């Protein structure tokens, strides 16, 4: 009996990551994935350049003390950008702390994106405006929210899809399992994109999971899964787009594992030299997602120096606006502490607000 003849075949991923562009930006023949149109590729390129510039800018802001902490997604731009571009306006994005580039790609104001890391409040943007859930820190917990949002969309007769991002480490949490299971049983329009960037802080995949791949988890929930090259922006876009369309059409959830690499340390506060070789990083730098897309686009004659420069200039402007926004001092309003605990302040909160008010008045006096 051949594998493909098995009823379960469609639930299993390929043995190795599939892609559309190889590490040198050459088209891979006969890929199962569909090559996106040129306009999409150019859009991916432009957004990846901006995303990367945003990322380096944010890292720079940590050095100036303007951000408390920043988890960089350098090297993961194919996922951060490819996945988001594959969404439509009515779709939902559920990002983690690492996915700031995904947010700005979605159109969230970069300064509002950084509010969390700047320390002014836990969230700077309105999740309903662009259907972007708060960046989630407790790992894997938002997978369930994405399933719930997707289920509610179907209940209300809307055709929106929820895309949730999670890391390799987060797949070990019980919530990931419960979310995949609920999605499988309820057939919710949810797409799970695991960015397997090789590490959960310091912990490598070998200590995290013993499966042939993380995508092999799908079959345990009756969820079709894909194992893709996460440094190939065309592949990420294509896989997510296909999954989103399937979900929108009522075909249920998909699990995608995108194999990529975290080029920087876990955050600026982390010291990656304690647990990995610089040689490993160097090897992955050679598989850079942006370089490969540029090589392909140049080869195809779609990207010339003028356009590259224009995009670079746009990215610089973007970074400048981020710097400007972040250099402005954040006005924090102590009384706001009491405003959003409940729909209305309770009597106890009114007492505490009065105490704080008096303290602050005393300090001023």
């Amino acid at each position, binding site marked *: 009996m051949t594998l493909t003849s098995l009823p379960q075949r469609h639930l299993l991923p390929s043995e190795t990551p599939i892609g559309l562009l190889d590490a040198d930006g050459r088209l891979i023949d006969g890929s199962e994935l569909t090559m996106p149109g040129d306009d999409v590729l150019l859009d991916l390129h432009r957004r990846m350049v901006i995303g990367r510039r945003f990322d380096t800018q944010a890292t720079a802001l940590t050095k100036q003390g303007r951000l408390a902490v920043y988890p960089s997604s350098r090297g993961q731009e194919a996922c951060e950008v490819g996945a988001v571009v594959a969404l439509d306006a009515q779709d*939902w994005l559920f990002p983690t702390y690492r996915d700031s580039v995904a947010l700005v790609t979605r159109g969230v104001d970069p300064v509002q994106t950084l509010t969390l890391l700047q320390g002014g*409040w*836990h*969230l700077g943007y*309105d*999740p*309903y405006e662009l259907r972007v*859930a*708060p960046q989630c820190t*407790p790992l894997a*917990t938002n*997978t*369930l*929210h*994405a*399933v*719930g*949002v*997707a*289920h*509610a*969309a179907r*209940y*209300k007769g809307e055709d929106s899809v*929820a895309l949730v991002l999670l890391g390799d480490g987060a797949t070990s949490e*019980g*919530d990931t399992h*419960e*979310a995949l*299971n*609920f999605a499988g*049983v309820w057939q919710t329009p949810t797409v799970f994109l695991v960015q397997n960037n090789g590490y959960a802080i310091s912990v490598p995949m070998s200590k995290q999971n013993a499966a042939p791949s993380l995508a092999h988890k799908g079959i345990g929930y009756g969820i079709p899964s894909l194992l893709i090259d996460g440094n190939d922006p065309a592949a990420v876009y294509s896989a997510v787009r296909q999954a989103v369309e399937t979900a929108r059409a009522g075909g249920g959830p998909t699990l995608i594992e995108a194999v990529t690499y975290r080029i920087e340390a876990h955050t600026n506060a982390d010291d990656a030299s304690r647990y990995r070789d610089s040689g490993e990083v160097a090897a992955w730098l050679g598989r850079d997602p942006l370089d490969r897309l540029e090589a392909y686009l140049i080869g195809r004659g779609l990207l010339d120096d003028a356009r590259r420069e224009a995009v670079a200039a746009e990215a610089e402007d973007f970074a400048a606006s981020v710097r400007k926004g972040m250099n402005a001092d954040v006005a924090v309003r102590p009384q*706001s502490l009491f*405003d*959003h*605990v*409940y*729909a209305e302040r*309770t*009597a*106890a909160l009114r007492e505490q607000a009065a105490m704080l008010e008096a303290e602050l008045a005393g300090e001023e006096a």
Partner: protein
Amino acid sequence: MTTIEKVQQLSMAGALNAALADALEADDRVLVFGEDVGPLGGVFRVTDGLSERFGERRVFDTPLAESGIVGTAIGMAMNGLRPVVEMQFDAFAYPAFEQITSHLAKMRNRTQGKVELPVVIRIPYGGGIGGVEHHCDSSEAYYTHTPGLRVVTPGTPADAYHLLRDAIDSPDPVIFLEPKRRYWAKGEVALDRAGAPMDRAVVRRTGKDVTLIAYGPMVTTALETAEAAIEEGWDVEVVDLRSLSPFDDETVAASVRKTGRAVVVHEASGFCGYGAEVAARLTERCFHHLHAPILRVTGLDIPYPAPKLEEHHLPSVDRILDTMARLQWDDEVCGA
């Protein structure tokens, strides 16, 4: 005022069932789900007949995973629905603790009020039913210590109906604790929306000598104690808290200032139990009115015991009376 047809004799389980049915009827954003709440009608039959009446689209069984239930409810509420979920027994809500504490309680705050989560988590709690381990916990203090959650618990069938309707209508997430040993006790229930607001305590019996503060399963016990106390010559005022969080300082402190003595009763273990907060805050607010320290009658500081031993653990009328006797009735009173 209620029309006569709307007043019924119902058990607490029946009143809860009526509240769910009326809420489902009133608002199609309301969904009811959890383990076995569909065709079975829940292990306590609180959801009896609802999936048949409203369809499995609105009242349904989930996979067996409490974090999953609460986590997906959060997502649904983010997207405009009003989920009412059931945790089958108190201790089986613990797997959902992270979702409750880090998300349900905090979402409004994190998002500066942009995202509100009108989720109700129904949890049958407490003992006194001869249940085996893990089926009789009183977990209220875990939730009341978590800002952002409302925690309410009915002591009567009428309150069961009213508080559950209010909880479902609340823009805030509500932990709705159902005293399982009182599920079958009947009472008169007005199926309307009148009555005390969700966050107010109610004086169930007036008295002048001592305030007995109770909630949930202990309301009945407190009222029995008040009757028994007549013989001791004590006129007991019974306050039913209803809302554990927020706490109704006004009503309760007024009673304690009047009587000058108070005892707080609950089934949960005493150490860091809810009664500690009640005693501490009332002492802060009523110190100079107190003839004696506020005392607590609570479960022992032990894991909930096996059925044949639970009677020794749970507050009883006698234990409450013994405690009242320690309220320094004969002392020289000062500071009042």
